[in-house]
C-alpha cells in the first residue's frame, strides 16, 4: 500500500467565544496516511469532537490550515466545501440520521444522486452492493425507520461509502450500539481501510475499539498527547 498523505493539518487553533474566550485546540499539526484506521480519543471536553468537525470541513471557524488529498480547504466557501464533502468525505454519526420517510436503498443512494457522476441505475447497483457488504441486502426496500438501531447504523455506513470517499469520519460511530454490533461495525471499518485503502478517522470513547486501530491520537486540553 502506498504511503501517501490523505489528510494533514498545520498549526490548527480553535477558540470558543461563548461564554468566555477559551482555546479548545492549541496549535495542532499532524498527518494521516491513506488507508490508515485512526481513532481520536480523549476525555470529554478535550476537543476531539471539535477537531473532527474541523477535519470534516463543516466547521470553518479556526486558524491554521487543513489539507485533504493535498487540497487546501481552509478559506473555501460553504457551497464549495459542501461539494467537496459530497465526493471526498463519508460520515457516520453516533445517531444514524437516516431520512425516516425514505427506503433503506434510497437513503444509501442520496449522496450519489447529489454527486451525479453516475447514472441512476449504476448508483442503485452500487448501493445494493454496499448493502450486501454490510449484510443488509434483504432490508433494501424497507422504510428506514423500520430497522433496528444496529441495522440503521450499518445503513448509515453504506450511505457514507456510496461515493467511494477518500476519508470516512465517524463521531462515536458505535456509541449507541451493543457490543455485537460494535464488533460488526469495527470489522467493516477495518476491512475498508485494508481492502479499499480508505482512510478512517473515528472519535470514540470505547477503549477496546481504539486499541484495535492502526493508530490512536489522544487529545488532552487541546493538545496532542502522543
Amino acid at each position, binding site marked *: 500500500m502506498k504511503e501517501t498523505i490523505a489528510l494533514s493539518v498545520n498549526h490548527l487553533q480553535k477558540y470558543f467565544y461563548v461564554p468566555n474566550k477559551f482555546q479548545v485546540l492549541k496549535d495542532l499539526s499532524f498527518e494521516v496516511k491513506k488507508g490508515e484506521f485512526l481513532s481520536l480519543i480523549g476525555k470529554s471536553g478535550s476537543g476531539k469532537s471539535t477537531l473532527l468537525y474541523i477535519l470534516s470541513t463543516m466547521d470553518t471557524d479556526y486558524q491554521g490550515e487543513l489539507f485533504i488529498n493535498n487540497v487546501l480547504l481552509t478559506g473555501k466557501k460553504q*457551497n464549495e466545501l*459542501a*461539494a467537496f*464533502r459530497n465526493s471526498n468525505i463519508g*460520515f457516520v454519526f453516533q445517531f444514524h440520521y437516516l*431520512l425516516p*420517510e*425514505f427506503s433503506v436503498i434510497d437513503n444509501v443512494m442520496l449522496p450519489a444522486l*447529489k454527486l451525479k457522476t453516475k447514472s441512476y441505475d449504476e448508483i442503485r447497483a452500487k448501493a445494493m452492493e454496499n448493502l450486501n457488504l454490510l449484510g443488509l441486502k434483504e432490508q433494501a426496500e424497507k422504510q428506514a425507520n423500520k430497522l433496528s438501531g444496529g441495522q440503521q447504523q450499518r445503513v448509515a455506513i453504506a*450511505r457514507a461509502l456510496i461515493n467511494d470517499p477518500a476519508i470516512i469520519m465517524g463521531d462515536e460511530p458505535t456509541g449507541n450500539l451493543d457490543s455485537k454490533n460494535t464488533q460488526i461495525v469495527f470489522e467493516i471499518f477495518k476491512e475498508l481501510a485494508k481492502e479499499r485503502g480508505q482512510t478512517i478517522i473515528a472519535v470514540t470513547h470505547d477503549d477496546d475499539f481504539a486499541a484495535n486501530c492502526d493508530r490512536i491520537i489522544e487529545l488532552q486540553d487541546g493538545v496532542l498527547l502522543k
Partner: protein
Amino acid sequence: MIEKTNLKIAYAHLTSRIKQSIIAVLSVTFGISMYVFMNGFMKGVNDAQTDLAFSTLAHIKIYNDLPVDNSNLLKKNINNNTIVHISNPKVIQYTEGIINAEQTIDAIKKIPEISGIAPQLNINVFFRNGSTKVNGLLSGIDTQNEDLLFGTAKYVIQGSWTMLNTQTDGMLIGKGLAQKLSLSLKDNISVTTADGIAKNFKIVGIVETTLAGVDNQKAYIRINAARQLLSKNASYVSDIQINVKDFNKAHLVAQKMKEYTQYKVEPWMEANGQLQAANGLREIIAVAVSLTILLVAGFGIYNIMNMTVNEKIREIAILKAMGFDGNDVVQIFLSQSIVIGILGGWVGMALGYTISLLVGKIPFQIASLDTLPVASDAKDYLLAFVFGLMTTFVAGYLPAKKASKIDPVEIIRG
C-alpha cells in the same frame, strides 16, 4: 434547475405530514376561492347596476346644448379696471334640436365601435284625459332602434310594441302615468304641447320599466307623429342616442364622434359620474378583501413551513454534512410551498367557481334581478392563481432561506 433528488425529499416531507400539508393547501384554497368569488360577485353587481342604468341611459347622447355663455359682449375689449353693466343679458338658443339628423347619423355610422343608433324626439307635454291633467315626457321613437338600444319592447306588459309601426296615432304609455290618468288599453288620450297644439292618440300598449320614475311620466309615439306634433321636418330629432360595443370605452368613441358633428356629444361617464365611481369603489373593496384573505393564507403557510423546518432540522444538517448545499435546501423547502400553492390554486379556482355558481342561484328579486348577480371572468381566475402563487412563494422562501443557513455542526453536536 431543480434537482430530482431534492424534489423527492420535498415530496417525502409533504406526504409524511399529510395533515399539515392539507391544512396548508386548504388555506391557499380558501384564499384563492374567496378572491375569485369576491371579484366575480363585485363584477356581477357592477354589471347588473350598469345594465339597470343602461336600460334608460344610452352610452353616448348627441343633442343641441345651450350655446356658450356670451352674454358679456364687452369682456374681450374692456380691461378689468372698467366696470361694465349690461342690463338683463340672456343666453339665447337660436336653434332647437338637431335639424338634419340623417346627415349626422350617416356620418357616425361609419365608426366601427358603434353597436346601435336611435334617434329620439322628446317633447314636454301635458297628457289629458277628461279633466285629469298630468305633465310628462312624450318620446317620439324609431321602434326598431329604440328596442335595440334599451330593450324597451320587453317591458311592454299589455298591448304590443310593434303596434306603433302600424297605427299612426298609437301611443305606448308608462304604467304609472296610465294609472294617474285612469287609462287602459285602447282608450284615447289627448296631448297638448307647450305651443298649445293638441292631438289625440290611442293607447296601444302599457310599459313598465325598472324605473318607476320613468313610468310615471313617459309615453312613446312613433317619431314621425312627434315631428308632426311640432311641425318639424322629417329629419328633425332632439337627441341621437348611441350605444357602443364596449361601454367602458364610450368616452373614447365620443371623442372620435366630435369630428363628425357640431352638436354636443356626451358619453355616459360625463352624464352619470356616480355610476363609474360606485363601480370603481366596489372593485377596490373586492380586491382589498380578497388580498387580505390571501395574506392571511400566506401567514398560515409561513407558519407551517417554519414548523416543518424546525422538525426536519436534523435531516437538513445531515444533508448538508453529506454535501447538499444551501441552494439544495432552499429548493427542498421552496418546492414544497410551491406545490402547496399550485394545488391550493387549482382547488381554490374550482371551489371559487362552485361558490360563484351557487351564490348566483340565490334568489334576489329586486328591480329586474331574479338572483344575486355573479359574473365570472377568466382574468380573475388567472390573477387569483398568480397572487396565490406569489404569496406561497414568499411565505415558503423565508423559512427555506432560514433552513439553508443552518450550521450542521451546531445541530449534529447538539
